[in-house]
């Protein structure tokens, strides 16, 4: 959330060129929404790129030296070793942490609310306040549940598909 604030407000505070640029460069969006949306996008991309690259790095480093040595004595080149042997083991290792992270990402989108991006919770709240109905906010909740549930099923299926080998 802090990162979203920083990305959204900092350019304005520092009077950087980015501010007018965003307004002119992204004209095809409605102006006020687009900068907010862009800020949220940038914040999420930076934040999750950091998390994911960390997961990939950990996955690649967790493959034992023995696998590389076995490839070397069999005459595989470095790239052959990576694509034919290491990669599939990394994929298997990173699926559980990846699925966690992606599900957290879905839930984290509600943080964009704080800088006024019209996302799911925002819409739910406005609808509730303007129409005086409580149900839309529950519908929004149900939507999260279904979305996250679907993702969970997808990842479970993936993990099962790869369960024929152990790393």
């Amino acid at each position, binding site marked *: 959330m802090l990162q979203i604030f920083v990305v959204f407000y900092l350019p304005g505070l520092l009077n950087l060129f980015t501010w007018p640029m965003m307004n002119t460069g992204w004209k095809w969006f409605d102006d006020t929404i687009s900068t907010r949306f862009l800020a949220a996008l940038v914040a999420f991309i930076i934040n999750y790129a950091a998390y994911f690259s960390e997961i990939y790095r950990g996955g690649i480093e967790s493959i*034992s030296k023995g696998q590389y040595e076995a490839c070397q004595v069999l005459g595989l080149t470095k790239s052959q070793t990576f694509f034919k042997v290491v990669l599939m083991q990394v994929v298997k290792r990173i699926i559980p942490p990846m699925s966690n992270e992606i599900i957290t990402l879905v839930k984290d989108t509600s943080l964009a609310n704080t800088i006024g991006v019209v996302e799911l919770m925002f819409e739910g709240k406005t609808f509730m306040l303007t129409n005086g109905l409580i149900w839309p906010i529950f519908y929004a909740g149900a939507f999260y549940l279904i979305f996250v549930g679907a993702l969970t099923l997808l990842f479970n299926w993936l993990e099962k598909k790869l369960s024929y*080998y152990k790393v």
Partner: protein
Amino acid sequence: MAYLSVKDVKKSFGKTEVLKGVDLELNKGEVLSIIGSSGNGKTTFLRCLNFLETPDSGTITVDGEQIFPPLSGAEKVVNSGLTFGMVFQNFNLFPQYNALENVTLALNVRAENELKEQKVKFFARKKLMKEKKKENELIGKQILEKVGLADKMQNYPCELSGGQQQRVAIARALALKPDILCFDEPTSALDPELTGEVLKVIKNLAEDNHTMIIVTHEMEFAKNVSDKVMFMADGVVEEIGSPDEIFCNPKSERTKAFLSKSEETFSEEKLCQC
């Protein structure tokens, strides 16, 4: 001249000198066992032969051809000619491939490399590879049959016992037809009741006149299977000779001490009734 000739190979890790000048001569079809207590550089020596480590100095010649230091002047030596094959203590099979795929992987990769070298175009190559893969599958099946795994070809490593995994690893190394096959304590990671099946496979290979170098703690096996036994102590070859010479009439005091100690710890019947 001997088939394999190693002269004065030295290797240090930082300040610790692990190999202090190892010499070795081995003829084609001979089996050499390397014995000695832990930390004496046996593994390091095998790794130097396979270029998993680069020796600091010394020469390695196979069949009259100097393979280390490389004559071409290349900085890093790669085992591209695949003179040596290696079987590891902890198998190092590829978990995502079944037994047969583990054996054929290197064959397929090699076939593809050859086609690339001949500059065969992408689609033509894919087509040729299909046939090659079929051929390699037959080769792989034959080798797996030879190590007694005809019924386990489609099984993944996690579905196999340690002994079976090690036999797959041996088949994988054999597939490339290396001139000299190295084993680094092939049975040390196995339950005692599983060592027999692996040792039997190695013994069959010895009878087929494969040139092999085996690091082992199985004295009984070393005595039965090898043409030469080498005792390593402290980074040098303390003594080398026929099994009878080493096990029955060791000349060096250290060899004697090592042998009597291993007889105690392994509580085997006396290695030598002489």
